[in-house]
């Protein structure tokens, strides 16, 4: 039951429109600092573009997808009209206003600080205020998800919350708490300096606060993807979810262990104690757990579909899978990229291995493979699956959809594998220019060229994606029927209260944040003489 289709479509269209712009900027950046492009002679333009690319891809695009998908889940899984539609529109317009407010200073070159802010670098205050508006808009969504679940619970006392909604609300709570770190950094540290009320900033503290947000935000980006794995893919390929409880456990594990791990981003920072770095490293290793659970459960669910279609043998069933179904293809691509990206992630989170790849192109390669690859390809899949229900029209050309998914997969591999490689060779990230004429880095020119070509393949795929969705708006009308989520092999009739509510897990998430972040943040905040003069972008 999708009633507020306009609302959901607005979120998706805005998400994909800004995604298209940021993707174009990304491809241009790959090109301009590769050996095939002619150097601009102005690094500032490169960082301007990089800031726009990161801000859109990190804050605006995934947040809008999670919100749009969240509203769709709330209506379809709970079978009730969205409560608070006006608030939802208010949240949407806040994000529009925030994005415009942030993009203008970026375009003027007044906020080339990259989306990770990097104090003591300070940009125009409106950039940061824009980001705050985007976050506030998304917090309205968090509140609405919670309210909608509460309304449903009142009407269905004791009934198991549908898996999709359980996971969706878990994702929204994760985001609410995750965003607090960056919000504290912006409101208490950066914005006062950007507004001219202060001229010094504690860059070390700011980095620790940002790490609070920076890693868990990845799991917020990941949530729609995991929800699609569990609740869309098995239905779309004619199977069933292997275990409803396993799915719930994966999502609550994300809630608990996604948060207290961000300091693996500050392994090289002197202001954090080694003991805390180790604890964060150990907890980061635990994140592998929900992912391995998910890979197991989804492979089992897919096997069920294959055997229902007559697949036989230990591995022979794989051939019986509906490989011409875009959803099957997207899942397989996503898993391959998740596998490689996850393996690379194990190196990043290891306290000592990290030293060899810290701040190299390896890191850029890693998060593009995980986020741009494994996660975003499922965003495409979600859009393809929802589109007929949102527009009331059919997406006819499955071949074009498959081509688009193939292009994205190939493009992402061609982009990120050489990226990892040059990172191991020591190529630093966040550099606007490399002199490939120098014998010391000339051998890396080929890898970087491949990477740039991969960027153009991704751009082609992105354009195709938008074309497919746009054509879907004008296709002949067809009733797609009610929107359904995948059923479990054993549909739950009763669920233990711990797996039907989020309270315990939110409490553990907050408790672990306090134990793992409390002391480092307090000592830094209370220490004297740790601030440095702000460096204003564009200041003379």
């Amino acid at each position, binding site marked *: 039951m999708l009633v507020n289709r306009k609302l959901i479509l607005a979120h998706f269209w805005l998400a994909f429109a800004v995604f298209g712009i940021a993707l174009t900027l990304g491809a241009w950046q790959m090109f301009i600092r590769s050996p095939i492009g002619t*150097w601009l*002679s*102005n*690094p*500032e333009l490169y960082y301007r573009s990089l800031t726009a690319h990161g801000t859109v891809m990190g804050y605006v695009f995934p947040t809008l997808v999670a919100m749009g998908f969240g509203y769709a889940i709330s209506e379809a899984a709970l079978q009730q009209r969205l409560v608070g539609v006006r608030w939802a529109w208010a949240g949407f317009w806040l994000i529009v206003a925030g994005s415009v407010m942030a993009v203008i200073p970026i375009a003027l070159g007044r906020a080339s600080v990259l989306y990770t802010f990097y104090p003591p670098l300070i940009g125009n205050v409106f950039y940061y205020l824009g980001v705050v508006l985007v976050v506030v808009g998304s917090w309205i969504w968090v509140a609405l998800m919670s309210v909608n679940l509460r309304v449903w619970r009142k009407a269905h006392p*004791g009934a198991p919350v549908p898996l999709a909604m359980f996971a969706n609300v878990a994702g929204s709570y994760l985001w609410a708490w995750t965003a607090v770190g960056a919000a504290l950094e912006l409101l208490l540290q950066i914005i006062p300096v950007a507004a001219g009320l202060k*001229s010094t900033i504690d860059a070390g503290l700011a980095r620790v606060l940002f790490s609070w947000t920076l890693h868990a935000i990845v799991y917020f980006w990941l949530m729609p993807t995991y929800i699609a794995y569990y609740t869309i893919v098995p239905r779309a390929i004619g199977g069933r979810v292997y275990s409803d409880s396993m799915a719930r456990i994966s999502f609550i594990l994300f809630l*608990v262990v996604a948060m207290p791990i961000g300091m693996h981003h500050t392994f090289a920072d002197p*202001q*954090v*104690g*080694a*003991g*805390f*770095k*180790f*604890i964060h490293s*150990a*907890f980061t290793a*635990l994140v592998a757990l929900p992912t391995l659970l998910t890979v197991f459960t989804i492979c089992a669910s897919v096997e069920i579909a294959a055997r229902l279609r007559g697949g036989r043998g230990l591995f022979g069933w794989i051939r019986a899978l509906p490989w011409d179904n875009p959803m099957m293809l997207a899942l397989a691509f996503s898993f391959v990229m998740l596998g490689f990206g996850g393996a690379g992630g194990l190196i990043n989170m290891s306290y000592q291995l990290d030293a060899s790849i810290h701040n190299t192109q390896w890191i850029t390669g890693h998060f593009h493979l995980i986020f741009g690859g494994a996660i975003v390809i499922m965003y495409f899949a979600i859009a393809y699956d929802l589109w007929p229900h949102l527009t009331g029209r059919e997406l006819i050309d499955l071949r074009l959809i498959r081509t688009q998914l193939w292009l994205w997969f190939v493009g992402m591999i061609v982009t990120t594998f050489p990226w990892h490689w040059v990172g191991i060779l020591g190529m630093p990230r966040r550099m606007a*220019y*490399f*002199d490939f004429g*120098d014998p*010391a*880095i000339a051998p890396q020119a080929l890898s970087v060229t491949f990477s740039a070509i991969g960027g153009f393949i991704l751009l082609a795929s992105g354009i195709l994606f938008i074309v497919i969705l746009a054509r879907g708006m004008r296709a002949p009308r067809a009733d797609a029927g009610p929107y359904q989520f995948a059923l479990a092999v054993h549909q739950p009739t009763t669920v*233990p*209260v*711990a*797996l039907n*509510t989020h*309270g*315990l*897990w939110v*409490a*553990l998430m907050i*408790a*672990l944040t306090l*134990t793992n972040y409390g*002391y*480092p943040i307090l*000592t830094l905040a209370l*220490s004297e003489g740790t601030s440095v*003069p*702000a*460096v*204003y972008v564009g*200041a*003379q």
Partner: protein
Amino acid sequence: MSTSELFTFRNRHFSLAVGITAAILIVTAIAGFLVLPFAQPWVQFANVWDAICSAAGVPQRAPKVTVPEQSTRLSEVVLTSSTLARPSQEGIGRGATLAQRCAICHGPTGVSRADSPNLAGQYAAVIYKQLLDFRSGARTNAVMSPFAVNLTDQEIADLSHYYAYLPRLPAYHPTPQLPKPSIVIYGAPMRGIAPCGSCHGSLDNKIGSPWLEGQSEAYMKAQLQAFASGERRNDISQQMRNIARAMTPQEIDQAASYYASQPPDVVKAVD
């Protein structure tokens, strides 16, 4: 079931979840705060508490050691982007009077024909820093030092504002404009040299760095050589000495002759 039944150790899920989480936290804390500090034989701790504090990152005071006497003075000037912000008209006027004694070398309009730096339109922060350094002895020059020794803080600020206020007049350009050499635009990344233009104009300007377009070639060359030999050392954290030492004599020539041949209005366009 209500939530009140959840938050009790009688609930198996609650006790399991809390128990496992606490156990992991305790085990990792023991490893991080006790085992690993002592696993580093090259680090010595006074006692267990000392090891825990070290792992937690408790700020520690460095042991009291006597700092060796500096043989030469270093620059102590602090510049931020708000240094010398908003000059007053009176200040500029006082600066104009004071500047009369500078005119013999730096020219009556702040444009020199004697291989001294052109000061007209130079950033205020640059003149401010160099005068303070001349006064403190961090930078020395047989001609300049005596002029700076007796200047007050106010006079230095006024002079800085006055010269920054003057228009950048076209300088004397004996050579036609040269193409941009790679050291100015790209630097030499493999030798740790940032592009000249990223601080000194042509690409960007950073606070405390002078704009160089139209300056005397002989002067710029002499300064680069002085930085390279360590004769001049008032650059903070050896920024310029590190660069000048790594530059080849050809690069020094190229950079100096390129900037000398640029008309200052190019800077205006970039700003």
